[in-house]
């Protein structure tokens, strides 16, 4: 599947499931909660999530955030202690996995080592009692889409990592389920293959139009693949939004720091008249936001600025004190040159303490180690969060 994209229909012309309006495969998590025995804190805490028919939703978060548990609850491999899970109109909360009409791609693929690729892909149909000829037809069609035709007779052992990954996908596709579940399916591939495979999975999902829930810890994967992204932390849903909105308007400090690479700079700064004091400059911030923070009794707010939203200044801008240059002085520690851009990792003195900052600079004019840059955040591109609650203040 690395060169060409095969036609959507298999040779039989019947490959694609024809989804009528009756088989709307929406997925709903309704206050779904999972508490592991012997643990006080829920692994997944009252998860509320509505996934539309045909949508590609990515669950993302650091390890231990409950994303895999959520997926396994939907698969039926994990009990639901409270709340409900629905697929379409069906309540599947306590149904066994086989009755849920789902297919799952496991992180380690879980290909049966004693079966050939074809047997692996057709196993579910064989158990369901589908006639042999039909199974062969479906397996061949799926193999064609995934470019696996020549490997159908091999055992998983004789396949490369990327091929195994595709067989795992094929096993899910052959079943024509209502919902695909994918549990970090790319984490065993090398970096280059991962990048090419993620676009292939995303485009395949779009062609098949099957509702997909995808779990990953990699925020780049989440942003590039998902129609929508759900960020979890400590079993709690932080934000569900499109990748664009997630990047532009993170709902709280955690999401702000998690989404985007390199991470957003988060600096705690004091509130002054007309904005916030950022080094030697005043950055104008929405009045309502400041008022809201002040109402909570905060004297500071946390300002988030993405590395690309710093402007370099050399004293032209208005400064608070005449002796110092405008903006925030950043001492360069390390410069990462990526060709087109350079990322400056430096230290700045903000609010009485040293703070590490990342600044994106033009790839042709990177500063030297040890130099001092003066930067100001670009107006309108700052994110303001409450220091006490971490919630977003600006809109």
């Amino acid at each position, binding site marked *: 599947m690395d060169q060409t994209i095969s036609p959507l229909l298999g040779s039989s012309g019947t490959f694609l499931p024809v989804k009528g309006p009756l088989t709307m495969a929406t997925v709903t998590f309704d206050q779904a909660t999972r508490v*592991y*025995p012997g643990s006080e804190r829920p692994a997944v805490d009252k998860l509320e999530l509505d996934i539309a028919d045909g949508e590609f939703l990515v669950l993302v978060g650091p390890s231990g955030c409950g994303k895999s548990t959520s997926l396994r609850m939907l*698969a*039926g*491999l*994990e*009990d639901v202690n409270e709340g409900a899970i629905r697929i379409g109109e069906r309540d599947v909360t306590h149904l*066994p*996995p*086989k009755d849920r009409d*789902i*297919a*799952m791609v*496991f992180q*380690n693929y*879980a290909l*049966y*080592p*004693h079966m050939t690729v074809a047997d692996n892909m057709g*196993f*579910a149909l064989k*158990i*369901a009692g589908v006639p042999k000829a039909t199974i062969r037809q479906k397996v061949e069609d799926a193999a064609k889409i995934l470019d696996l035709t020549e490997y159908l007779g091999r*055992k998983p*052992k004789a396949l490369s990592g990327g091929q195994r990954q595709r067989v795992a996908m094929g096993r899910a596709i052959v079943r024509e389920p209502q919902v695909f579940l994918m549990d970090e399916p790319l984490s065993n591939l090398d970096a280059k293959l991962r990048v090419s495979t993620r676009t292939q999975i995303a485009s395949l999902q779009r062609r098949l139009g099957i509702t997909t829930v995808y779990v990953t810890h990699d925020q780049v994967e989440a942003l590039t693949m998902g129609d929508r992204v759900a960020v979890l932390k400590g079993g709690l849903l932080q934000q569900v939004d499109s990748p664009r909105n997630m990047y532009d308007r993170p709902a709280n400090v955690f999401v702000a720091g998690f989404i985007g690479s390199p991470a957003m700079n988060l600096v705690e700064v004091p509130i002054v008249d007309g904005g916030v004091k950022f080094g030697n400059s005043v950055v104008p911030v929405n009045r309502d936001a400041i008022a809201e923070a002040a109402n909570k009794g905060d004297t500071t707010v946390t300002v988030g600025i993405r590395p690309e939203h710093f402007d370099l200044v050399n004293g032209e801008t208005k400064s608070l004190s005449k002796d110092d240059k405008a903006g925030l002085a950043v001492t360069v520690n390390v410069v990462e040159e990526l060709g087109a851009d350079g990322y400056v990792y430096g230290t700045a003195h903000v609010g009485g303490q040293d703070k590490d900052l990342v600044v994106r600079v033009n790839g042709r004019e990177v500063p030297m180690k040890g130099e001092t840059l003066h930067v100001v955040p670009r107006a309108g591109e700052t994110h303001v969060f409450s220091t006490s609650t971490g919630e977003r203040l600006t809109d």
Partner: protein
Amino acid sequence: MQHGKYRFIVGFLALPLAIYAVFVISPFVQAIYYSFTDWTGLSSDYSWVGLENYDRLLDDEIFWKALRNNLLLLLVLPLVTLGLGLFFAFMLNVGGKRRRGAVIAGVRGSGFYKVVYFFPQVLSIAIVAVLFRYAYEPTEGGALNGFLRAIGLDSVQPLWLGDPDLALWCVMAVMVWCNVGFYVVLFSAGMSSIPRDFYEAALLDGANRFTTFFRITLPLLWDTVQTGWIYMGIIALDSFAVVQIMTIGPGGPDYSTEVLSFYLYTKSFRDGQAGQATALGVALLIVTLIFAGIVMRLGRRERLEF
């Protein structure tokens, strides 16, 4: 490095090979040699008799009976023991009903059963055989017939070890009882090395317990089963202790529990026909080699890796 390589290798191999030759190879050769003599085993005089011992063996009704019993044990014992072992191990590890907390689990109290199943393995075979001899006692004191009477089956009072048609099966039952626990533990260990992913994938594919066992567990456990088969086969070909201690005669009524190893022992130490006994030993060796060959051929498969 090439220089002196062979001296280096020979230096390490010479001693072990010499020990092996003296203590393993030479007794084999010696035994085969004695099988062509009329040695009594009691004196140092013997003379060469050629194939006479083997000739006599072919006409020996007891030999054929013993061989038949051995072959029956070889077929039935591994099949029943391994079958039961696999069944119990599957139930203990993955056969349980869905319970709170885990999708794949053993039956309730599986940890306790694992220990209980292993008990017979700890007991000495001599003690087991003595215990069962009393249990099989057809008179008042016998536990089995006592039990049958207690549940009102006064008319069903088999002679057990005294019945030529039943005696061998009684021996088999004891040997199964002794060995099943070991295979439960062995197969449990094998099953716990199968990644849970496979079971979960099978669950999602819609496999029930039955299909999971035959299509996933058994193929992935094949190496272990094969090892168990060979080991159990060796026990079946031997079965000396149980026959010697437990059965009537010993050897059973009408030689019904006679086996090659016990017949060999009788010939050489009771009848003073060591030459004849070594011929029996050679016959047992041939049977063993054929068995090993068949198992190796049938069991040859690609190695699996998870």
